[in-house]
């Protein structure tokens, strides 16, 4: 049977497209998507898998076909055809990847701005410090993003100072805060509000502090300190992330979100959990020997369950109790840390040895 070349090409093209689209939707490589932000990221990934599959098949197909079709016959010592190039063809395979890349870039841009990646600039400019957010009383939690990034600001020292006792007790206050310098390529990392929520403050603010080798979450408006992150689904959460000793990174694979925790800076991660469940919070930046066990849970629950949890915590861990604890023991961060690290199976000696105090000491 003799099928004309153009038809073969067409058929191969259709086949490639079908396989690529099928695989792009059915790769099953990602865990469940449990935040609203995850959806856009997954769609983006699916598109890239589709394109990637197509390219993969073209290149591997050509190689395998050539391998069998063009192998030298045993008695053939002649050279192949003298072909040095083909300008239209070369233009074609420059242009097509350029277009593909442009599509991916534009789509990525779109998704990035939808999850709030581009928001912080507009956001921080648009807000006078005297918004409702300040009423939360947590300078640490919100002041950083409110400071216009280009303003070499005299408040910088206050920016990091946590005014709520819970956060103040947990954070290392001695680390001087750095300020943003976008023109030098250095700013606090953030994922801000989605365009829908732009200009509004998040429903809940939580401060996350990374230290070797645990996460501590403080709820400025209720004074709760917890080793696990509780969040209500469907509500926008603003997580303010910083670190006391070395770099860490807050990552919840099911949320598809990750932010570095940097000592001296406070990064902002705004997101909306969308599926009830318990997910791992993983530290995704090498932070020392026990980096692998620096893990905890995020519990995404209904508003009612969340409220119940808050109440329980407030009884057990009231701000007053907390203040007395601080008064009694100046090394409070350790104290807070102790129960959590025991859960993680790290002995106190290790923690002691790697504690920030050690960092200060050894750095001089």
């Amino acid at each position, binding site marked *: 049977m003799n099928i004309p070349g153009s038809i073969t090409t067409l058929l191969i093209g259709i086949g490639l497209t079908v396989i690529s689209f099928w695989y792009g939707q059915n790769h099953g490589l990602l865990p469940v998507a449990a935040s609203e932000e995850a959806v856009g990221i997954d769609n983006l990934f699916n598109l890239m898998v589709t394109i990637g599959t197509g390219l993969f098949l073209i290149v591997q197909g050509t190689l395998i076909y*050539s391998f069998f079709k063009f192998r030298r016959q045993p008695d053939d010592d002649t050279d192949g055809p003298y072909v040095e*190039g083909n300008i239209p063809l070369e233009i074609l395979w420059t242009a097509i990847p350029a277009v593909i890349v442009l599509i991916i870039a534009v789509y990525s841009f779109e998704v990035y701005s939808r999850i709030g*990646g581009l928001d912080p600039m507009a956001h921080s400019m648009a807000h006078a410090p005297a918004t409702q957010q300040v009423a939360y009383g947590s300078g640490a939690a919100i002041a950083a993003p409110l400071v216009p990034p280009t303003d070499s600001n005299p408040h910088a020292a206050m920016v990091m100072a946590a005014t709520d006792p819970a956060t103040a007790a947990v954070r290392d206050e001695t680390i001087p805060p750095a300020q943003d310098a976008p023109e030098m*390529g250095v700013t606090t*990392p*953030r994922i801000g509000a989605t365009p829908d929520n732009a200009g509004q403050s998040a429903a809940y603010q939580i401060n996350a502090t990374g230290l070797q080798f645990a996460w501590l979450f403080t709820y400025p408006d209720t004074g709760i300190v917890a080793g696990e992150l509780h969040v209500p689904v469907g509500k926008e959460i603003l997580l303010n992330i910083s670190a006391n000793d*070395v770099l860490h990174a807050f990552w919840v694979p099911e949320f*598809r979100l990750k932010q570095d925790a940097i000592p001296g800076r406070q990064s902002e991660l705004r997101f909306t959990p969308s599926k009830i469940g318990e997910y791992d919070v993983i530290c995704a930046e090498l932070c020392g020997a026990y980096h692998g066990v620096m893990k905890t849970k995020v519990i995404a629950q209904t508003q009612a369950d969340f409220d119940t949890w808050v109440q329980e915590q407030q009884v057990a861990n009231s701000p007053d109790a907390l203040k007395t604890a601080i008064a009694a023991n100046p090394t409070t961060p350790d104290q807070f840390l102790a129960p959590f690290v025991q859960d993680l199976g790290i002995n106190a000696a290790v923690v002691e040895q790697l504690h920030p105090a050690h960092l200060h000491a050894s750095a001089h």
Partner: protein
Amino acid sequence: MTQTVPEQAIVTPAHGGSTESKREWRKYISFSTDHKVIGIQYLVTSFIFYLIGGFLATLVRTELATPASDLVSPDLYNGLFTVHATVMIFLWIVPAATGAFGNYLIPLLIGARDMAFPKLNAVAFWMIPPGGILLMSSFFFGAPGSGWTSYPPLSLVDNQVGEAIWILSVLILGTSSILGGVNFIVTILKMRAPGMGLNQMPLFCWAMLAASCLILVSTPVLAGALILLSFDLIVGTSFFNPTGGGDPIVYQHMFWFYSHPAVYIMILPVFGLISEILPVHSRKPIFGYKAIAYSSFAISFLGLIVWAHHMFTSGTPPWLRMFFMINTMIIAVPTGIKVFSWLATIWGGKLRLNSAMLFAMGFISMFVIGGISGVMVASVPFDIHVHDTYFIVAHLHYVLFGGSVFGLYAGIYHWFPKMSGRMINEKLGKAHFILTLIGFNICFLPMHKLGLEGMNRRIADYDPKFAVLNVVSTIGAYILAVSTFPFIFNVLYSIFKGEKAPSNPWGGLTFEWQTTSPPPHENFAVDPVLLIAPYEYGTEEAKEIIKAGPFLATAAAEG
């Protein structure tokens, strides 16, 4: 400098290589200024370090065979992958791709008798062994455990002695690489044979020129970063230490300003090797010479302005993230030009599927997978999910192993007859290829899924739900380890017992094939003049040249 040349010319027999004296091997452990000796010194040294790096990787994979941290302490585990990566990058790929092949091939390809600065060349090489031994010695003092990236503040507090050793050793290796780069640039620009304009140079020279420019511009910035880091570490300043008002993000920028271009330093020369190998074994001219040549420079230019794609979750402003994302993705275009040109070179050829060709085709196949995952991680929103996970580990091994290592193997098989004067065993070569291809994919393909599902990198303990794929990966690593044995045996056997190689076993057109195998001291008996562009396969002139034998070396005898 070349003043030493005359004396040596007198003592060397007109046609080298035929009578190997018993003392021959000694020059390979001496301060030789012959570019061929230096090239082989680089190749052997770096391959030994590859075995060491691979041994460390095998330990890493063995630890990861079970979810618990049971084989080594978590602290040592960090040391293992840190040294693994440092060895692989600074002591294997960089010295092998630029040092070994650059030194061995460039003078031969451009028809020169040696590099521009032979002594400097030897100095650059002799910095490698001490640098490497120094690095390995860190295991006795607590190996550096903050990754090959050595981010402060962790690197300032974790295993400080090991870290100091790491810094010193990388500084030494970086200096060596800069000296090499200076030499390559001057040699390629100034010492080409008459008639060889830049546009007639073999493509490997273009690639090396582009890579050397990157070395020259980016490596010093790493040196700057390491100098500041060592002050923080040893003296106690706080450039990068936030507790003293320093900024760790500045280190990241400086580090990646080198280390991103470094990945192109590691791949561009290999692209060059592939561009040399494919036309010879496909018996066709390279498809789109100029496009391949210039795209090397496009890649090296773009490579300088994408570094912050390693920092999408740390402190980079949003608009800059977009800038870096787009630049990064655009690199797919010049790289794609190369890939498609290679495919078109193969297309319709008369493929000689020997070990060199198999590895070259394997290179294209594996590198493209790594390239595609590279473009994926360049997308900011997606990278926010997979940054610092096994997806990245998969990407980097597909480009570094599937790319650079496959390409280097192809190069070794292709030029083995020229370097040693003996043919290599093809059966063992093919066994090596098949084992490598299979082991490689079993080892690294599952890592994509692991990363997407939530396994972060640089951990000794992991969630038991990832156990199955990790076991698969570990098995793959063992196959990879085994795959090196046929290669090592093959090389050792063939060097001594292999069939004698003719001067031009593959029918190549570049100058090195027109001289004897191995080439005589000073490479050529006559000063070569370009007669034919390097890839004119399929023409009558090409046939004549190939038939003429090693006329550049034996002309004297005939004349």
